[in-house]
């Protein structure tokens, strides 16, 4: 009985998280566009699904993703092998990005833009190889970013120097990169970090910072996601210049 009440509270919390979207879409549909809500039953069922899904996700987060990220951070710290830790960081960044559906979509669009802009030949084969090359480029850049970010946590270097350096890199690349690729490059920073990668990488960073003496998890533990959203912008513009 008690656990039933706890589950109900969790579901209500998820519903509350979802309320703003329901209100916004309802308001625009009824008041601005002045149209009825279509398929009411299906939409209601969909909202129930979203609420259940968000609740299960948060539970799984605390039971699975956070603990494994932290356990591995502690294990690598106590093993003391920097090489394997950096390899792991690279693999995590590369592996989670290369198959990311949002990235596959963006790479496809980029290939179309490149073909229209006469940067590559307008054929299926050359578009496919352009898109594939772009995906690998972004995945390598995210792997590199997580690796560099982990190295920064170990060394305890202040994050702002890296970010400002990255910004300068983006600005310089913007000057030289083909105009057509800039919008896609800027957007590529935002699409690389998926819903499963974010909790894992965050737990890894915070876990590392708390297991190394002299590091503050708040100051040093965060920042891996920031690296992973910055480097793809630079690498995608570089790809646009080289290919």
């Amino acid at each position, binding site marked *: 009985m008690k656990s039933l009440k706890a589950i109900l509270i969790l579901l209500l919390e998820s519903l509350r998280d979802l309320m703003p979207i329901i209100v916004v879409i309802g308001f625009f549909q009824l008041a601005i566009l002045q149209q009825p809500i279509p398929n009411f039953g299906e939409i209601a069922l969909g909202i129930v699904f979203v609420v259940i899904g968000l609740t299960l996700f948060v539970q799984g987060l605390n039971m699975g993703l956070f603990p*494994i990220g932290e356990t591995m951070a502690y294990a690598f710290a106590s093993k003391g092998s920097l090489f394997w830790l950096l390899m792991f960081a690279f693999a995590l960044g590369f592996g989670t990005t290369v198959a990311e559906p949002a990235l596959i979509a963006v790479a496809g669009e980029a290939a179309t833009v490149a073909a229209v802009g006469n940067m590559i030949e307008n054929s299926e084969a050359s578009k496919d190889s352009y898109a594939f090359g772009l995906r690998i480029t972004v995945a390598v850049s995210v792997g590199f970013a997580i690796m560099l970010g982990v190295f920064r946590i170990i060394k305890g270097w202040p994050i702002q120097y890296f970010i400002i350096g990255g910004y300068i890199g983006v600005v310089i690349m913007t000057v030289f990169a083909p105009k057509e690729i800039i919008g896609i490059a800027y957007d590529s920073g935002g699409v690389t970090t998926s819903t499963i990668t974010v909790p894992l990488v965050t737990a890894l960073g915070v876990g590392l910072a708390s297991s190394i003496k002299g590091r503050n998890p708040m100051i040093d533990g965060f920042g891996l996601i920031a690296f992973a959203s910055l480097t793809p912008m630079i690498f995608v513009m570089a790809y646009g210049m080289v290919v």
Partner: protein
Amino acid sequence: MIQIFIDLFFTIVHTIKDVLPIALIIFGFQFLVLRKPIKNLKKIITGFILVLLGLGFFLEGLEAALFPLGKLMAEQLTDPAFISASGSLENVQWWDYKWVYLFAFAIGFSTTIAEPSLLAVAIKANQVSAGSIGVWGLRIAVAIGVAIGISLGVFRIVTGTPLYWYIVTGYVFVVIQTLYAPRLIIALAYDSGGVTTSTVTVPLVAALGLGLASTVPGRSPLLDGFGLIAFASLFPIMSVMAYAQLSEWQVKRSKQPLK
């Protein structure tokens, strides 16, 4: 009605496929490199299964309920017939798009509140800061940043100004703000730029950008439809630092009379 359950099954299968490489990397390194038994392995695997099921339900629910309506709405709001009574966009000014800006702001804010990866980072930040960074405070700060970012991004598509002007100006602001922001918030603020745009926000915002870029005269959907995500990843950095600066200032002010 039955279709949605069939779709749910396929969405879950798809999610498993997405998680497989991550699971392989984690367990591969665990067994080959670290070679230590994992504590509470059963609980962690249950957690992974919950995450998979949760994401499956979440995505399928969005796909069935909110995305079709939201995307249709973005198309209708950017439709020339809605923007001007005559249906012609020749004499339209940027403020004729007022409902589009409002929609961009509202949808940016509300989808960010429901974004699972932001929730994850907020929970972690709350634990690490021993409660001094509130889960809701952070989420609302980020959501305001995304809302402002997307409305400004929409304004850019309507006016046709170059993307990099805004982004580079934004960078300058971020750098200046970094000098004055409390040290504890800096890394978290930088992170919050990257977590805002995933499952919920991207599809709706992309529909909005595409709708605008293909209807506003002189814009091409291929070149001008991009850039909204970049706005949505930049502005939360500023709003989160502003949130920390504001709370620091408030604490200082409330302490003043005691001295």
